[in-house]
């Protein structure tokens, strides 16, 4: 199963999204939070994200969900720091972080490949509230 990493400036947001999306996950589905910076403050930390990606990978690659602004840059930096063979199997989702994570987790849980999970996450942009 494709692993999912949730990157937010807030550790609480990242953990909360993982908690919620975990309700939709099949057993064994990895959903790893990488929120906040080392001292617990608001921000994103490339080292934390790198460790989360490594933890989320079970061999099928990892989709990284990001919130605002510099979360994307930190995630890109984290991917740069990975070993080459993993680097090629990680993607950053261009998707809303909550709806995208929920949709991605369902798709990953049914065994879809990274390209499909990433497309499903991006498709969550079109979900209407009513």
């Amino acid at each position, binding site marked *: 199963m494709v692993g999912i990493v949730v990157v937010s400036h807030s550790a609480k947001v990242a953990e909360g999204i993982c908690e919620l999306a975990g*309700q*939709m996950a*099949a057993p064994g589905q990895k959903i790893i939070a990488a929120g906040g910076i080392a001292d617990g403050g608001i921000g994103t930390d490339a080292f934390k994200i790198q460790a989360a990606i490594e933890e989320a990978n079970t061999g099928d690659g990892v989709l990284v969900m990001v919130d605002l602004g510099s979360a994307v840059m930190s995630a890109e930096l984290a991917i740069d720091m990975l070993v080459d063979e993993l680097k090629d199997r990680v993607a950053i989702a261009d998707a809303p972080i909550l709806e995208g994570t*929920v*949709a991605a*987790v*369902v*798709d990953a*849980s*049914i*065994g879809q490949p990274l390209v499909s999970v990433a497309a*499903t996450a991006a*498709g*969550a942009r*079109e*979900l*209407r509230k*009513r």
Partner: protein
Amino acid sequence: MTKIELVLTNAAGLHARPAAQFVQKASSYASKVTLLAGTKTADAKSILAIMGLGLGQGTKIELTADGPDETACLAGLQALVESNFGEG
């Protein structure tokens, strides 16, 4: 090709967690499964399509399965819907 009609009786309808359970159950079978509600159809294995329908409690749905395990597939989905997705 096999068809069944069901009514969503659980409180949440086919949203969020029930939608995820439904898609995961449908995906565990080889058959192609289509959900019809009113005039709208959705691929039962697509979480976006199912969540996008936003079907609430009391909605009548028709499920069509086509494939080698279509009977087992519809029986599995029927059991899930009729169990109210474990909502109790």
